[in-house]
């Protein structure tokens, strides 16, 4: 709104917008999220009409036939809707009209209500662009001076059809209510939740497990129908004393196999205090992913076994604590790998690496003392003395200059591979800009 007051408009090139408003803050459009938001609003709007459909990428159309009297008239309905949306912090523009086309035009050019029978008069002053006719045709009409719907409606039809095609007349008729246009609401998205009310409160762990299994089977069928698998599940146990216990588990891969999922619940159910008994249960898979049907075979897949392990560990320790190493593109030893939650990342094989060999174990630099010689002939590390058998190097690595890493403030490092008489093959470095030696790795 503030941007529009400054003179910015939709469809304006970014550079132009910036020229007008240099302080403009921009964010790239997130179309899937916007669409999802619109769908949420659509669900909300269902309280005003049984049929609500998406209308373009930025609007909703509701067929309110027979509804207004429930709210005390059209005006009251519109006020109620505006008040509720305003309460939720959403600015909307709405229009009520006798035809879908007229409502579309009015909602996008001021909003309001066109009373019954006044359709033609009501939309006469609106710009032709409101007719859902595309920029090209609208532009053509405007160039001829036919800028308002009223200008168009009073012209002979045949010449207009000849010049702009039949589409224009169709849209005009639809707006004037001379051609019907139904509202087609799209189907609801599937809801992966199941519930069960028990005739008698239960308290035994085995009973709860048995009920859970029944719920899981039911949910599994529902998931299978939509070729989906659960990633997170929430189980709600309603106790007789009106307390609700919530248990949530995560899965390292999408799954719908009741038995394997049930196994993950076991440990958490053990800790549940059933009180005077549980009288109802609800299970909801609130995070789901695509899981196409697979051919059944008996040998368990290596990947799946690993994923099940992650699920078990993750539900016990927290998924963020089960991590794996991933290779990273950097010649700085500390940054040549990254840690990432195992359940949310894919294993990567280390790309074929060129360049000098790297130790098997890398650890944070540790001080090396009592160094004599360059490269060291004798030195102490971890309270043991070492004598050098052979030293190879130096490999000079300079810090990544764009990245201020406290560990690298000592400047460039000269790395040496040192085979010791004592056996270990070690990876030491020297920092010539702040002379000191440190140990950072061990070769196999």
């Amino acid at each position, binding site marked *: 709104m503030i941007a529009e007051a400054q003179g910015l408009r939709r469809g304006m090139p970014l550079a132009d917008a*910036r020229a007008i408003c240099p302080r403009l803050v921009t964010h790239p459009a997130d179309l899937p999220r916007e669409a999802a938001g619109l769908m949420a609003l659509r669900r909300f709007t269902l309280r005003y009409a049984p049929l609500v459909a998406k209308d373009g990428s930025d609007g909703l159309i509701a067929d309110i036939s027979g509804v207004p009297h429930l709210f005390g008239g059209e005006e009251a309905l519109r006020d109620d809707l505006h008040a509720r949306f305003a309460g939720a912090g959403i600015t909307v523009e709405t229009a009520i009209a006798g035809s879908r086309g007229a409502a579309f035009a009015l909602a*996008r050019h001021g909003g309001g209500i066109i009373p019954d029978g006044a359709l033609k008069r009501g939309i006469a002053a609106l710009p032709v*662009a409101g007719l859902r006719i595309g920029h090209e045709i*609208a532009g053509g009409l405007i160039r001829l001076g036919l800028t308002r719907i009223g200008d168009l409606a009073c012209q002979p039809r045949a*010449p207009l059809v000849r010049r702009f095609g039949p589409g224009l007349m169709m849209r005009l008729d639809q707006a004037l209510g001379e051609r019907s246009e139904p509202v087609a609401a799209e189907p609801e998205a599937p809801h992966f939740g199941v519930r069960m009310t028990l005739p008698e409160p239960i308290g035994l762990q085995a009973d709860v497990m048995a009920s859970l299994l029944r719920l899981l089977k039911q949910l599994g069928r529902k998931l299978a129908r939509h070729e989906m698998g659960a990633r997170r599940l929430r189980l709600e146990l309603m106790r007789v004393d009106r307390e609700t216990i919530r248990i949530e588990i995560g899965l390292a891969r999408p799954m719908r196999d009741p038995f394997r999922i049930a196994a993950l619940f076991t440990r958490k159910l053990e800790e549940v205090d059933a009180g005077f008994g549980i009288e109802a249960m609800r299970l909801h898979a609130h995070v789901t992913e695509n899981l196409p049907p697979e051919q059944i075979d008996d040998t368990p897949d290596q990947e799946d076994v690993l994923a099940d392990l992650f699920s078990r560990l993750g539900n016990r320790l927290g998924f963020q604590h089960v991590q794996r190493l991933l290779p990273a593109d950097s010649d700085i030893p500390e940054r040549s790998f990254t840690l990432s939650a195992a359940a949310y990342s894919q294993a990567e094989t280390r790309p074929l690496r060129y360049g000098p060999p790297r130790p098997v174990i890398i650890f944070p630099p540790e001080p090396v003392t009592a160094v004599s010689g360059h490269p060291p002939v004798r030195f102490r590390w971890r309270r043991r003395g070492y004598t050098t058998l052979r030293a190879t190097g130096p490999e*000079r*690595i300079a810090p990544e*200059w*764009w990245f201020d890493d406290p560990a690298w403030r000592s400047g460039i490092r000269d790395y*040496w591979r040192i085979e010791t008489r004592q056996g270990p093959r070690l990876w030491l470095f020297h920092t010539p800009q702040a002379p000191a030696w440190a140990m950072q790795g061990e070769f196999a």
Partner: protein
Amino acid sequence: MKDYAELCVTSNFTFLTGASHPEELITRAAQLGLAAIAITDRNSVAGVVRAWTALKEMKRSQAEEDTPIVPRDMPLPKFIAGCRLVLTDSPVEWLALPTDVAAWSRLTRLLSLGKGRAPKGECHLGSRDLQEWGRGMILIALPPDPLESGCSHADLRAMGHRFPGFCYLGVAPRYDGRDPLRFDHLERIAHKTCLPMTAVGDVLMHRAARRPLVDVLTCLRIGCTIDDIGLNRLTNGERRLKAGAEMARLFQHHPAAIRRTMDIADRCGFDLGHLRGQYPDEEQDGEPAQDRLERLVREGGIWRYPDGLPPKIAARVETELRLIAELEYAPYFLTVRDIVSFARSKGILCQGRGSAANSVICYLLGITEVQPGSITLIFERFISKERGEPPDIDVDFEHERREEVIQWIYKKYGREHAGLTATVIRFQSRAAIREVGKVMGLSQDVLARMTGLMWGSSSKGPGIGELRAAGLDPNDRRVGLTARLIGEIIGFPRHLSQHVGGFVITQGRLDELCPIENAAMKDRTVIEWNKDDIDSLDLMKVDVLGLGMLTCIRKAFKLLKDHRGLELTLDSFRPDDDPDAPPVYDMLCRADAVGVFQVESRAQMNFLPRMQPRDLYDLICEVAIVRPGPIQGGMVQPFLNRRQKRESVEDLGPELMEVLKGTYGIPLFQEQAMQIAVIAAGFTPAEADHLRRSLATFRRMGTIHRFRDRFITGMLQNGYDPDFAARCFAQIEGFADYGFPESHAASFARLVYISAWIKCHHPAVFTCALLNSQPMGFYGPAQLVRDARDHGVEVLPVSVNHSEWDCTLEACGDGELALRLGLRQIKGMKEEDAEQIAKFRGNGYPDVESLWLRAGIKPEILERLAEADAFVTIGVGRRDALWAARALRSPGMLPLFGADGEGVDEPKVILPTMTLGQEVIEDYLSMRLSLRAHPLEILRRRLPESMVHERLSVMNGRVSVTGLVITRQRPATASGVIFLTLEDETGTSNIVVWRRIYERYRNAIIGGRLLRVTGRIEREGQVVHVIAEKIEDLSLMLANISGPGRIAGNGPPQPSARHPREQAKRLFPSRDFH
């Protein structure tokens, strides 16, 4: 210190790879005491001349200066010009170092071959090509790292067999901990392939501090940000130039590899100074060049002076001819003459300028039109033996027909003998900010803000103030780094482009001198060196330039012939003794110069009334003085004061006064400044000229102050005023890039006179020719048309029944000529369609459909014509015509059902009529001009406080003016002052915006199309300025001219419904000059 020669150095002429200028590398090599350094860029020799020139400059500085760049006792490195050949069919790269001129020629031919096969900027060569052409070059193989990939040695062995004794194996340290192992591996390969091992540094930068820049360049090359560079970064800064001792330490187990570099350096006997451009001998039918030149000069004498040569001229011709004979420059003059006479034969107007054009011979040969008597011909400027520099003549041609001349040159000399010089496109601040900022991960928003703050193409990085204004914290580490890198990358070459028209022509093959590559433009071939390089190597070149005004003048001559029966040529004007000259000068003195060559710029227009030119020499001064050189040197005000006798001419001694007497003791021309250096500062002529030509090099090497000190001390010693000395030097600096020699100014001044003459005596013809030569000059069609109407020319609207593609002239009842706008003024119109319309016109088209039926004009074009209101002469208005055109658009329409066929008449449609405002806006949308009304006329009643321009001249004190912005200028010389020109329905007003005001109203000034300026009136002679104090952007009002409709009031989803001001920007464009 160990002797070592660095044989593998990549400069920043390997674009987006090397991180040091060739000059920096050479200087650093000298400081490190290297015995020799080679510049070996990837498939290119574009940077070698820079390095060679820098070395020459260091030598000169050691020999001549008290505090040379490199201490006198330090031996300078030897420079080896070479190339790193990257082959398409082999992983092995080869350093090619020519040992003699013949080998150099083979190298450049090899490169030309590869470049000829590839698109611009690339070079496709195979091992077979190298085997064929590689004789006489030292070839150092750089195989891929043997520790990483096994590679067959067949390539190495084959090359070794082909060129025994010339092939080596290059070994470069990598400093990755495996160098000893690597050296051993390579030594084994060396033994196996019999290629002796030699050490190379594989240098990318002159100091390790350039490592960040290398990484940024790598990111630019592969297109990623610095955080994603990963393993492509430079792990350490070891790929820098290293001293011999350090290389010896790295190669301590292979001392022979170090020693061998010295052997190789000794074998490379080729020096770029050995290159001699053998100029074509220009013999014709067995007649030697000198004889032919003398014959042509004699013939020219009879043509120019039918009554016989005046004795003074004849003597001068004799000396000039003798000097030319002595220096054997006759072929060069003949080349230029031939080009000019070719152009003449085709009716292409042309005119020569440049130092060598400053001669009687050029006048007699028809190269220039400047009469020898009208300017002072300083003989030394013509050509001089001491300087040993080649003569220099630039020839301007009509810009629309220059391509004919270029192709003729290619045809006459052949593509192996003629090529255009290159221009090095360098990183300027905007590009640097954009690209480095992107690499450093700054957001698009921030970058846009930062570049938006830079005006024009400056060569400075962003300062702390700019960073803050862009919303960045200059103390942030990353921001600081980015700013530093931007500063470093500015001036780096980015790619080669073609020079506007500098031709190098040779007798032998040009590609034996320098590689030739394809240009982006079809049918053009370009050499790898630019103008400065050509100058440094003393190669001769001819500049074939395009000049819009010549096109305009030719068109005007044609119109004068057709409509007035006047046969005019460039030489039929006598600016000093024409009977119709006084009105022309009167007009110029009034600063009535819209469209006149050179003097139409804002600064010139201000200057004209103060200058009061009355003859050609005044015009010459006028052209020369409003240039960066004299302005920087502060020469303008004293010149005017002395001319207006408000200040007496100070006596500078007889010698200087001889030089400066014509210009009131003020140096205006290049040669005058040079002569001051000689006479007053004690330079030798060669030094003075060297100074002027090498200023660019000095700036890059940071040694300019040495010359300044010497110059000023020299002048002080000879008893000149320190202030005057400083001004003279400032002017020489300015001249380096923009100065005019006198003959050059004289050539331009003639064009000023000719164009002013046409404007004064035939304003309709002048405007018509100008419109037909667009785009050119400072003003757009709207201003030109308006100026013509102010001068009483009737301008007729575009009409399908009258207009051609070009604008035309129609005779009016009173014998005057009226200007009919051509179809070319309509946006989106094509020339073929316009020709069709004219061809099938017959007795005129009765309606819109007949154009479609008879001329076959597509409905889309008909719509454009309708929008331009071109049917108004047949009584069909804009919207009705559009309505009719639209009907033809529907698919499947057959003429049978049209008005001519059996179709039933359509019901009549009444379209809303347009308001005047809408018509004006439509005119501007379609043609960028309107004959109906000025937009301000419609807005006037809403601007009661604004002064009409007409009344400015009688006003005093504070006023408000409102107008469309026509031009915005920020001259580099005016220290941040901006000049705006505002146009209203009565004329244009000049606004001066001081820096302080600019800072405050920056957005309005940069973005606004309609401005209201409040400020003080200032008068200087006849010129009235408004010194801005307050500036308001009223562009929004433009949108409301048309009322609701086309521009405003449409719903948001329509893309054409932009912000009104943005719309206004497209409607009323201004021309901005930086």
